[in-house]
């Protein structure tokens, strides 16, 4: 009876099954790593922005600094400027060499600074809950409890 499993084991070793299993495992792990990388580096909004700024499929993806494709570069610059104008409408009044830069609205930037510039809304919610805990110095459960009891009576 023990001969059959042993034979199977030897056959598997002979045919390189452990190596194949290892390769499959490695492939799965690398796929998982890619998923983690995408999760950590890209958000839906950044993808949206990139797809708007990025070049159309008909043009080659030559957006590197050494590119010699002037048409693609010009198109890329046009799209970038369009998005920049959308974010900072004041830029329309700036001249070609007179732009000293623009700022995002004051209130959200101050809040974002306090929340350590979260990468997306999920991070914003997480940081906002931590911020809430920091602000709520008196842990004010009691006031609401008293109020509720008052209502009940």
């Amino acid at each position, binding site marked *: 009876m023990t001969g059959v499993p042993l034979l199977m084991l030897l056959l598997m070793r002979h045919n390189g099954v452990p190596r194949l299993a290892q390769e499959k*495992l*490695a*492939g*799965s*792990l*690398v*796929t*998982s*790593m*890619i*998923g983690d*990388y*995408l999760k*950590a580096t890209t*958000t839906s*909004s*950044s993808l949206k*922005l*990139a*797809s708007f700024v*990025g070049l159309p499929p008909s043009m080659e993806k030559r*957006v590197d600094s*050494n590119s*010699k494709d*002037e048409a693609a570069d010009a198109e*890329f610059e046009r799209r*970038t400027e369009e*998005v*920049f104008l*959308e*974010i*900072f409408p004041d830029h329309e009044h700036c001249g070609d060499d007179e732009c*000293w830069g*623009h700022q*995002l609205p004051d*209130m*959200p930037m*101050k*809040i*974002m600074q306090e929340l350590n*510039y979260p*990468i*997306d*809304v999920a991070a*914003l919610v997480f940081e*906002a809950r*931590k*911020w*809430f805990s*920091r602000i709520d110095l*008196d*842990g*004010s*459960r009691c*006031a*609401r*409890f008293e*109020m*509720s009891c008052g209502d*009940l009576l």
Partner: protein
Amino acid sequence: MIKSASYADLISLALTRRSLDGDEVLAEMTRIGLSSDQATQILQYNKNATGHAELDDQDLINALIHIFGNSIPSLSASDMVTIGYLLNKYDENGDGNMDLTEFRTLALELVRSSYTFTGRETLDSLDLVQLDVLRKHQWKRRETQELKDGKEANNAQNAMDAKKQSFDVEATNEPVSSSEEEQAEDKPMYRETKAQKKQLEAICFGMQTICCRLLPADGEFCQRAKALVDEDGHVSADVVAFSLELKSKLQNKQTFVDEDTDASEGVSFQEFCAMFASQGADRSGLRATFDRLDVNKKGILKQSELSMYMLEAKLPPDNGESGTISRGASIKRTPSRRRRASMDALRNAKDVYSALVEVESLETALREIFLGQVLDIAFKLQKEGVVAAPPLVRRKSKVWNYARE
């Protein structure tokens, strides 16, 4: 009965929920630099019908999302958060202002990073750039217990401790040694063996040789090639970018793009004449050749037309007569001179081709090294419980087992 039940719900809700009163909100918003009017705006998001100016955590989140969503008319809250994050990241001079140049850098990096992976890659299909990105990425690691006290790893406990620490307000105030942080960031996660190190040095040396042999005029690029390996034998992190640029330059050289000095995607007659300036060719003869090659008569030679010319130049006629390339009537070119010129062109093309093949083989070797390092990282991350792979053998379902019993 129903009313008492609803009050009971209200009491339980009140016991479990916390809230910020108006003073707390005003004090905090003033501290971060907002005006009292802006703080009052936040307080307006109280959805509880209590009549008190107070916010619970969900109200605060709703208020923030509403503020972000209405800051810039065309942007949603999610877009605003991401743009704020990116502007802070790419604000080179740190003045909080973003000009068009900084924004172009931002957009370029964003496009590059967003299109690195499509999500459909497999281990075999990963290219050099993708492998380089995976090996350089700062992976979030979980410290295994063995590293601390030699006991068995308990990643669940470690994860719980890390979570507690992130919520602990006091812990965030503790200063963290910057040098320790830098060391942790600089230290690569993969292990580089001696054999790999030697191989990497050989690859860099191979690239240097190609660069000095075929691109001696590009002094800056040759300097970069020399800087790939420093005196201590450390290989630069830009080796992938350099190899891609080298290949691109060689391909350009191969396809006569170098002759297109104004990068107009075509070679004008002036540029065409400059190609033969050293050979003393007659201008009228060159004009005739140029007109013959210029099929669409636009006065500019396209890439395909130049490639055809290159092909002709590479094949010297057997009888010594050139019916295709006219060098002009005034200079009588002997068959030996023509053959020599053709052989020179052929030799140059052969050099570029062989260099391209060499760069490809160097890249293949580089890819093998990077693949090994990425797998090293993958198995480390698996051990720490950061990434996981599905089981190789599917277990039998319990339902099936019960039915069998």
